[in-house]
């Protein structure tokens, strides 16, 4: 098991190296440069030239890449040109918002999706099943930003039940420990702040959960149906095992394998989907920052953010594989 984990982790290095080379040279091939975004419409060509030189953008690309690599070796991803702050700091600042949102969405998706999918499978062809199948189809087809918009108009603007924007009520001064607002509120026992953060998570979390929820429901339903038809389930039932044991130990556990994969993949996709949700709810995570960085050709920020996200994606997949092997010993053997 340890070897498996080490090997998979080491695979990260060539993957990220290759990605960094591709990204670095591809980004520089985009027309325009930060000297245009940063200096506005009226700067003189001399001012732009001076800025390019100051930013080291006139050096040969190989030299610039080498500089990037040597800095990276020291754990330094460079500085965002937009904000003048280290890229890592910027990431650390924005990641909790996106992660909190993704976790909220995943909690909703898994918490509702697995039981619902299971129930639908157990009562195949029934009213609930039809509703689940139909509903999940709508969930998959509805664009997240549209759903986000509808939720916002109905629950924030018209009913006023939930806030329409931000991660917390403006001016609510809360202590920051991790940057995860709910967690911070619980850790510092500022219950108001934690509750405020949960309220602010409700609508964007619900919107973002629509696709993973639908996927989890469908995967669970299909997988449970498949397992229910397996010989060993019939055997177990025939042996006179308690139905409850059959259903949890035999059916659910085995049915969870493909669902875990789906959850893993969806978690990765959530970070991408969060971009739109963040902007609709002015949530201020990594998505809006990456978008702004492409606008200003903020090379260091783009490169740094994308590399970190890629690394996380690979790591999430690794975690999925590990949980897989825990659930199913056969994976470890092979």
């Amino acid at each position, binding site marked *: 098991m340890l070897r498996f984990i080490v090997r998979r982790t080491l695979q990260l290095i060539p993957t990220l190296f290759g990605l960094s080379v591709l990204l670095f040279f591809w980004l520089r091939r985009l*027309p*325009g440069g930060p000297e245009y975004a940063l*200096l506005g419409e009226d700067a003189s060509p001399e001012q732009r030239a001076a800025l390019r030189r100051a930013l080291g953008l006139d050096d040969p690309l190989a030299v610039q890449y080498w500089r990037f690599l040597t800095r990276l070796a020291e754990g330094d991803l460079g500085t965002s040109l937009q904000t003048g702050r280290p890229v890592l700091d910027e990431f650390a600042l924005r990641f909790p918002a996106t992660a909190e949102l993704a976790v909220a969405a995943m909690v909703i998706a898994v918490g509702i999706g697995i039981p619902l999918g299971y129930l639908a499978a157990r009562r195949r062809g029934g009213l609930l099943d039809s509703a689940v199948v139909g509903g999940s189809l709508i969930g998959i087809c509805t664009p997240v930003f549209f759903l986000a918009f509808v939720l916002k108009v109905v629950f924030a603007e018209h009913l006023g039940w939930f806030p*329409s924007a931000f991660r917390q009520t403006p001016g609510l*001064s809360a202590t920051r420990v991790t940057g995860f607002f709910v967690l911070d509120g619980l850790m510092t026992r500022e219950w108001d702040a934690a509750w405020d953060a949960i309220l602010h998570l409700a609508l964007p979390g619900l919107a973002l959960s629509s696709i993973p929820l639908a996927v989890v429901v469908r995967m669970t339903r299909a997988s449970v149906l498949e397992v229910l038809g397996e010989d060993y389930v019939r055997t177990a039932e025939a042996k006179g095992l308690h139905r409850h044991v059959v259903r949890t130990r035999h059916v659910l556990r085995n049915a969870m394998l493909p669902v875990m994969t789906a959850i893993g993949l969806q978690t990765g996709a959530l970070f991408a989907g969060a971009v739109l949700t963040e902007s609709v709810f*002015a949530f201020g995570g990594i998505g809006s920052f990456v978008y702004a960085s492409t606008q*200003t050709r903020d090379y260091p920020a783009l490169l740094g953010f994308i590399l970190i996200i890629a690394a996380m994606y690979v790591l999430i997949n690794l975690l999925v594989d590990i949980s897989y092997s825990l659930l199913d010993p056969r994976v470890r053997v092979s």
Partner: protein
Amino acid sequence: MFIPESARSLSITASALILVLIVTGCAESTRDGGDGGERNETQPLVFAGAGDPRTVDPVLTSDGETFRVTRQIYDTLLAHEPGGTEIIGGLAESWEQSDDGTEWTFHLRDGVKFHDGEDFDAAAVCANFDRWYNFTGNYQNSNQTYYWQNIFGGFAENEDEDTPDPNFESCSTPDDLTAVIEVKEPSANYPGAFSLASFGIMSPKVIDQVAQEEVTGDPGSPVLPSYTQEAGTVAGTGPYRLVDWDRDAQEVVLERFDDHWGENAKVKTLIIKTISEEAARKQALEAGDIHGYDLVGPADVEPLKDAGFQVPVRDVFNILYLAYNQEAGEELGDEKVRRAIAHAVDRQRIVDTILPEGGRVATQFIPETVEGWSPDVTTYDHDPDKAEALLQEAGQSDLEIDMCFPTEVTRPYMPAPQDIFDIIKADLESVGITVTADSMPWGDYIPHTDSGGCSLYLLGWTGDFNEAYNFLGTWFDGYDSAWGFRDEELFERMREVSTTPDADERTALYQEVNQEIMDYLPGLPISHSPPSIAFAPDVTPPAVSPLTQENFAEASFS
């Protein structure tokens, strides 16, 4: 009916959670209440801009979102009349210039306090100017000290050959309340420059404290000093002091400074939030999460008004133009073609259908409110027949030309670039000009047009202060690859007028230059567009400023 335990408890928990969320969300939803005076003290006024501020030291940026915050914290030597562009006293009660325009004497306000308790005096003014002039290392990066370099040239010791020679000479203090700033050459940039947000006056005690802080980092990776990134490090003399910059929540919290030299701010706590999406800003206002926001989409103005929100109109202080690049499109070297295009475009239609209320057709490259605007310039009415005739005379009745416009962007002077392009294209095609569209994102657009990549293209400019040179000098004081023409006579006139010390004389000269430019017609000025700002119905907004320099100390709950 059987439901597995685990699934049943999960679904029960989930439904319970949602129910609780809904019910308590309802209970938590307490909005507003109380009379204005009480609310001013207890409720923060929340205003949303489109981007995070970059620094709390305004000299290190050229960014309007930053200035929105720093303008509340710092005062400048000179200011603008509320809601207008006329220059009035700020920290200086009065000022005068020497005859040759190289010596500026400022008579300072007495009894002004900095937020850190220090007294404001002439030495404080000089401490600021001397600091800026003596910047070294990465501070000399044009990205860090853009306005200083634009207005005062370079530094005591320039470290880069491209940095301009300094025009700043010295700052002296004949007495405690008089500061004299000497420059090498007169410039049309003065006195307007002394009102720029970048040159907000900071407490000398802070300057001493941050003296050792550097812009660090390698080439390509300058890191702003830490004092510029947090609350509690800086002090100005403005109506608000900075008490919190919560980057996680993307908000800056400002609190009323009760020892302000002018009238104290009405609202005790002012919060500036970041909402980058235009639609999200609008919805946050509608949902009552914020009390105002800037950069309202033109299409939202009427719906917001209908819904009872306030959308006060700022006076226009910008220009949208159709540039003719005579090197990219050689036919544009012919004056008849340039005039034909001017007659072909129905600018009134652009103003009527695309710009928000208060928009105007431009007759020249500066708005009417700027000194030097001339009522006597040649104008080009919408006249397709004349355009066709001119094209025929020029032998260009089958003219084909490319035209660029940016996508994914709105600028204060250019809402909906694509829609504006569509109108112009249709107008040009109706007189027989074939237009090839070339659209690209903003990040690519500026370099492309700058380097002369488009024959026709849309661009504009918002002024920094009331001085024609701030507009005209941007484009016409020498050869510029963005325009691709050489007219030494015009360039020489521009240089002459920019170094004329006497303001009245300068105004007269600008009027002549404007007439010359509109005879020559290097491009077609299209429109002036008022950038919109919106407020909740229960707020008394500050006087809206054409320079987008709202003073939030004037705002209150009503």
